[in-house]
């Protein structure tokens, strides 16, 4: 008797798992699609950015491309004194993006960067004329006159678990609204949601903001004896790139990367850096890890394009059916029905088992 109950129980319990598995399979296949799409996407991206670079270098007064400039920051500690974050080239670039809009403001920023000759009527501006071109607060906090920022950069301090640097890696991170398009329900995102690096590797991040507002690449959880508050932080108003370098810890870990501008992380700009085998996953990364708190979605009765006039009646019926199917009540009943069917189909099986037992008993 007990065994019979157990079997029924098991069958009942197996049901949701089956559903779950199906759902997960769907999800994973979605993910694969996304990955595939993404790969195409990024390929496309690169060609785009190459174009951008090309146009940009045409107008580059200083002969410093954005990328070359920022790599310089990564490689040489004092590179930032040589216009590493090249503001002016960006200015030129943005003119192309906003033909009419940016023109005037652009001209102004130019003026103010070469403002020292105007400074007689600007109060104490002369005192710090050129500083605006490149603010340099201290070694671990570099900021230019547009707020482009590198904080917590570390080029040579080895974390305690590292005897030497295991390797040098460069990672390009793109940020912008368009990267959120593949994640419904988000607005901002990075182009990738996780990056893998080996423990003790020296990683240079090239952070390219493709929006026209501020974005941040802010990493938490680094060792606090090297990184203030355990943070490494790149910030830039796009379209522009900023680069910074860190040496990652020697043990496996997973670190949070996000944009801290109000609601940017919540609305999708969140990722993780996986060191070695990684640690615990960070929650609510788009397409990667589930939210801790989920919204409740209910279907809306929205107008849809109806089929051609001939098929109108038919489509009406179909619509009615699909509509009724979409209702959650109906769905529940359907699941009930499925459950009942499965139960019915399993009767012969049960019977077999039971009869098998009975016969064996009889034999006894």
């Amino acid at each position: 008797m007990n065994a019979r109950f157990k079997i029924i129980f098991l069958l009942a319990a197996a049901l949701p798992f089956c559903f779950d598995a199906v759902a997960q399979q769907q999800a994973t296949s979605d993910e694969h699609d996304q990955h595939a799409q993404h790969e195409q996407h990024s390929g496309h991206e690169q060609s785009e950015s190459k174009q951008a670079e090309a146009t940009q270098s045409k107008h580059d007064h200083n002969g410093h491309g954005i990328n070359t400039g920022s790599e310089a920051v990564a490689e040489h500690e004092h590179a930032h004194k040589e216009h590493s974050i090249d503001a002016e080239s960006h200015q030129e670039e943005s003119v192309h993006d906003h033909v009419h809009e940016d023109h005037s403001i652009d001209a102004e920023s130019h003026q103010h960067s070469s403002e020292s000759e105007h400074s007689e009527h600007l109060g104490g501006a002369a005192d710090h004329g050129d500083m605006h071109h490149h603010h340099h607060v201290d070694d671990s906090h570099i900021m230019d006159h547009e707020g482009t920022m590198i904080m917590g950069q570390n080029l040579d301090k080895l974390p305690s678990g590292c005897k030497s640097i295991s390797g040098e890696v460069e990672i390009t991170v793109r940020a912008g609204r368009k990267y959120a398009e593949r994640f419904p329900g988000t607005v901002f995102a990075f182009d990738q949601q996780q990056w893998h690096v080996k423990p003790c590797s020296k990683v240079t991040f090239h952070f390219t903001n493709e929006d026209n507002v501020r974005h941040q690449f802010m990493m938490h959880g680094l060792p606090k004896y090297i990184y203030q508050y355990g943070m490494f932080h790149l910030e830039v108003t796009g379209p522009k790139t900023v680069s910074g370098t860190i040496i990652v810890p020697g043990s496996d870990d997973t670190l949070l990367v996000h944009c801290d501008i109000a609601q940017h992380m919540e609305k999708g700009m969140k990722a993780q850096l996986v060191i070695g085998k990684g640690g615990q996953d960070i929650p609510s990364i788009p397409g990667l890890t589930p939210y801790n708190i989920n919204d409740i979605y209910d279907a809306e009765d929205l107008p849809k394009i109806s089929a051609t006039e001939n098929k109108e009646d038919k489509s009406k019926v179909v619509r009615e059916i699909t509509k009724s199917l979409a209702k959650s009540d109906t769905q529940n009943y359907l699941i009930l029905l499925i459950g009942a069917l499965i139960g019915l189909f399993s009767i012969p099986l049960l019977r077999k088992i039971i009869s098998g037992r009975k016969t064996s008993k009889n034999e006894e």
Partner: protein
Amino acid sequence: MSNFIRTIIVIAYLVCASGGTYASLKLPETIRVEPAALTSEPPCDPKIPPAWRDAQVIDGVEIEADLGCSPDNPTWIAVAVKGTNNVSMDTLMQTHFSPDAIIKTDDLDGDGDPDRIVIKLEIMELNGKSPDFPGQVPTFDIAPGVQPGAWVFAPKTSGMSTENFESVRANPLIRLPSPVIRVEQGDIVQIVLENTHYFPHTIHLHGVDHPFHHELNGNDGVSQTSEMELMPGERRIYQFQARQPGTMFYHCHIQTHTHLSMGLGGIIIVEENKPNNWLQTLNIGGGHVRHRSEAIKEQGYDREYDLHYHSMDKELGDIIKQYNDPRLTARDMNRRYEINNATEDYFTINGLSFPYSLRESLVIVEPNEKIKLRLLNSGNESIAIHPHGHTAKITHYDGIEQNPLAQIRRDVFDIAPAQRLDLEIETIDDGLRNTGEGDWLIHDHREKGITTNGMAEGGSMSSIVYTSYLGENGLPNTSHFGVNLDNFFTKEYWERKVPVWQNLDEAATFGAAAGRTINLDAATRNTLLYALGGLLAGLFLYTIFAGRSHIKQCAAAVISRIRGEKGGKE
């Protein structure tokens, strides 16, 4: 089942209390909520150093004293006056301003002040939802524990949106109200909107002399006439060169019925063109103007205050606390929110409600002074502002000067939505202009205007305080009247958990009445329920155990019958 228990308990109680007279002879005791049981806040924000109140000079910028208890960070004022491009690095680094937030260049008319002004604004969400934890982020309290969901224009900042890594409180530059903007008549002004928010927005420059610009998307902020919504992550420039001075209004013109109420509106002032007129381009949080314009000084005003009245609907703000998915937020805001059935719940002055309004928005005066007040009503309904102890002269309606011969003096000022009034208060004790020194309330005389989500005394109340009635800490000195404001500085008061009049006498005549029904506390009730559940489960198991052979037989009979039937069919 719990009902059953409750009934039994109630019956038992009634049996005990029978005799009838017992109930009325002994009424329940009075409960006074003890101060120690409340989450008390210090009346003044302890994070604000008292030195910020002093008159001082930073980077050559003269900053007037502010005797209030939460004055603006004086470095903000220095930055706002000189511009982020001209102020010293040291000063700039004491603020969270982005180095390109306020750019001031080019003295075009040669009168000693910059005439090209670029102001960069971002749009920030306060008290929004997180998918990671149940609370709000970044938080902003308009009164203790009162956190309406809100959106604001914020000066372009640098770094984190919260105070620091460990805090969820908003960076002090990101706050209600949207900042007061000051520009000079004739300045070539560009307001650069960088939409850091997840919804589309624009800026409409209400009352400011601005052209309907063919090339700048209309330049009027209206998505139904000329200008597409500015999408998240995009930037747009609004440009004008105002010929007409006055107190004006800027606000988002997308889904205005919700976006304005959410907080996307602020005061913008065009000051008269004067020589050496370095203006305080942004007055963060409004209130006292600590670096006044040349024109205001010339007109003989001793002090100037920006007072932005606003109202918000709790149910509207709650939408952003409810959903993280922007499609759901948009659905509820744009299609489900019904403004015709909405009521205003929060009434603020400069983004705060009483008692926080006392920290920042006191009108602090001395006798025989002339004070300029600039009032904006950005709420949904008309307001009726009443200053006790004073009458004031209306000098400007909607930024336009009233004929001086026709200017009138009143004691209640009705301001329709979006209207502005410039008031002149003279602290001259002649029985008309002023009736002497004091701590005179200034409040909205629609009575709901002094409530916070229906709880009085809150709302947009503030005071006109004479320095002789101002305490050391910068709050009105009420203690010598026996007035204690401590309860207002607790979140429990605004959660309606503190009897308002309980402290009026020793006996607590108006304390809370204790309950009469037997109230089991939650833990005991749960224990009892579990015990009962256990008992029932035990009984059930026992019956099954006792009748196991019987059940077995029944089941066997049923199965055999089914088999038998099927067999029959075969």
